[in-house]
């Protein structure tokens, strides 16, 4: 048993080391963040299009994982970029551009969640739109896993879902999450720990349901 414990610890430490190599810096395809921000503030439309290209997938995925609806995710993505477009002059550079973008996106997610439209038909977009239905390479098992993950995420409270999505899927650091959500790092830590435990239980439930 002790050997098993040691093995797991080694694996965990390797995992940490591996994660340590991952850079979370803004990838701007040759444009430094400072230059990009300057161009955005000058109203450079090419720069804005560049920004959209850089962040739309991230924002879209974040919104989808939080709302569980592709259409809401599209709304949020659009509103986020419009918010960025109109509010660029308010960006003072106190935080990273990415953090600022995530903060705007999170605010829109919250707004959407609050005014959830009951008259809308429930979407099960993954049934029709999932990558598995377009990409023959993806197996049904992968699709099931992805579906279970999404259902488990939606089983979390909103606050827990936020931190899990930002950290585990968007790979933000704790301080970036704290900046984006406007909460202390200690709160991020405790929310993330509790969320992951709850997520583990939910995923276990789905796995046992599937058997």
């Amino acid at each position, binding site marked *: 048993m002790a050997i098993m414990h040691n093995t797991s610890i080694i694996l965990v430490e390797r*995992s940490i080391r591996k994660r340590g190599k991952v850079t979370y810096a803004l990838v701007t395809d040759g444009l430094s963040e400072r230059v990009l921000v300057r161009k955005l503030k000058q109203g450079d439309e090419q720069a804005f299009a560049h920004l959209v290209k850089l962040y739309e*997938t991230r924002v879209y995925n974040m919104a989808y994982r939080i709302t569980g609806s592709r259409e809401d995710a599209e709304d949020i*993505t659009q509103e986020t970029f419009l918010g960025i477009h109109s509010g660029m002059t308010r960006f003072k550079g106190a935080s990273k551009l990415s953090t600022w973008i995530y903060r705007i996106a999170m605010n829109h997610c919250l707004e959407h969640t609050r005014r959830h439209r009951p008259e809308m038909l429930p979407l099960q977009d993954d049934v029709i739109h999932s990558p*598995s239905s377009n990409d023959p390479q993806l197996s049904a098992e992968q699709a099931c896993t992805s579906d279970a993950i999404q259902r488990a995420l939606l089983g979390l409270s909103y606050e827990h879902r936020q931190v899990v999505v930002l950290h585990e899927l968007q790979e933000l650091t704790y301080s970036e999450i704290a900046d984006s959500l406007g909460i202390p790092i200690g709160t991020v830590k405790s929310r993330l720990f509790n969320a992951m435990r709850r997520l583990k239980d939910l995923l276990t439930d789905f796995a046992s349901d599937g058997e």
Partner: protein
Amino acid sequence: MKNSTEDNRSASCRSRFQGELKAYLDGELGVLRKTLIRRHVEHCRECSGELEQLASTSVLIKKAHVLQPPMHIAVRFASEPAQPVRVDHRNPRLTWQPVLVVGAVLATAAGAMVLVRMSPAPMHSSIRSGIVVHRDRVLKDTRVASPTVLPLHGRAVLLAKTTTIRLSPDPTSAEADRLTREFFKSEQGKALLAASVNHRHVPSQVSALPVQVAMNVPRTRSAVNLLVTFANQLGGSRISPDSGAQTLQRNELTIRVPKSSLSQLARGLARMNAGLVPVDLPSSSVSAPAPGRSARQRLAYPVMLPSNHIARSTPRENVEGNQTGKATAATKGVPMIVVHITFGAKDRESHNRTTP
């Protein structure tokens, strides 16, 4: 004795370290705290088990698919940023390319409340303001000019430069009516409505107007069936023409739906334009298209709506016109809106098959 010690240690570590295990796993702790926890985990079965489970959960959740937003839109946005649009008031013919907006919507006005004033657009100026096509906030006092339709995530966004759109102080006046008509015949108005209908958001101010929708799906019998069934499902009905055959000949269909269902209708039509069924159905109830079929071709397949999705009639009844022009009992007294639908490219094969 040893077991007892281990148990005590496990019980105590729950409060001391367990809350920090995730941070330890993520490398978010300081050196001292990290060392303490590592030493602790080496001897604590409970914490090492917890750590292992946290790590495996973290690995598992990263297997979630990365979804791609609508790529064609992103590419277009990136490659063709904000080109000003020339507006020719003497000729209302569209001069811009409605790439995103597949079905153009033309609305005539009856009681909406918009005053539009246009001025020449400076071709070189940068975007200063814009409006988002949104169901519950549109056409507010917003500077909109030389409308540039920026397709962004399935919605057209009108970004403005010089023109001003403002609410009329008296929305019931004849003048407001006239101006509203003019606006919705203008390119701005068309773009706005097209964007809203094709992407499910319907401005509330527009919901009282008759709406014309141009679908890009071919006029197959199954598409007509689907539309009529969908209208019935929303509590509406077919108005004209009287039969499916006439629809196929005339290439048009007029339905009416409750105003409250307009956003659902618009959303359904948008889905049909994308080659999907208008409502989310269990996958087993939709005939799967053969591999290699295009999105447009999917609708040529029979689409079976489950019985609980069909509120008042079957598709067959609708095509034969048994309920034409008659609101169902359940919808009496409900404010309705008329929607004229025209179909896209003629499907010759289907047309020949269904009409002699």
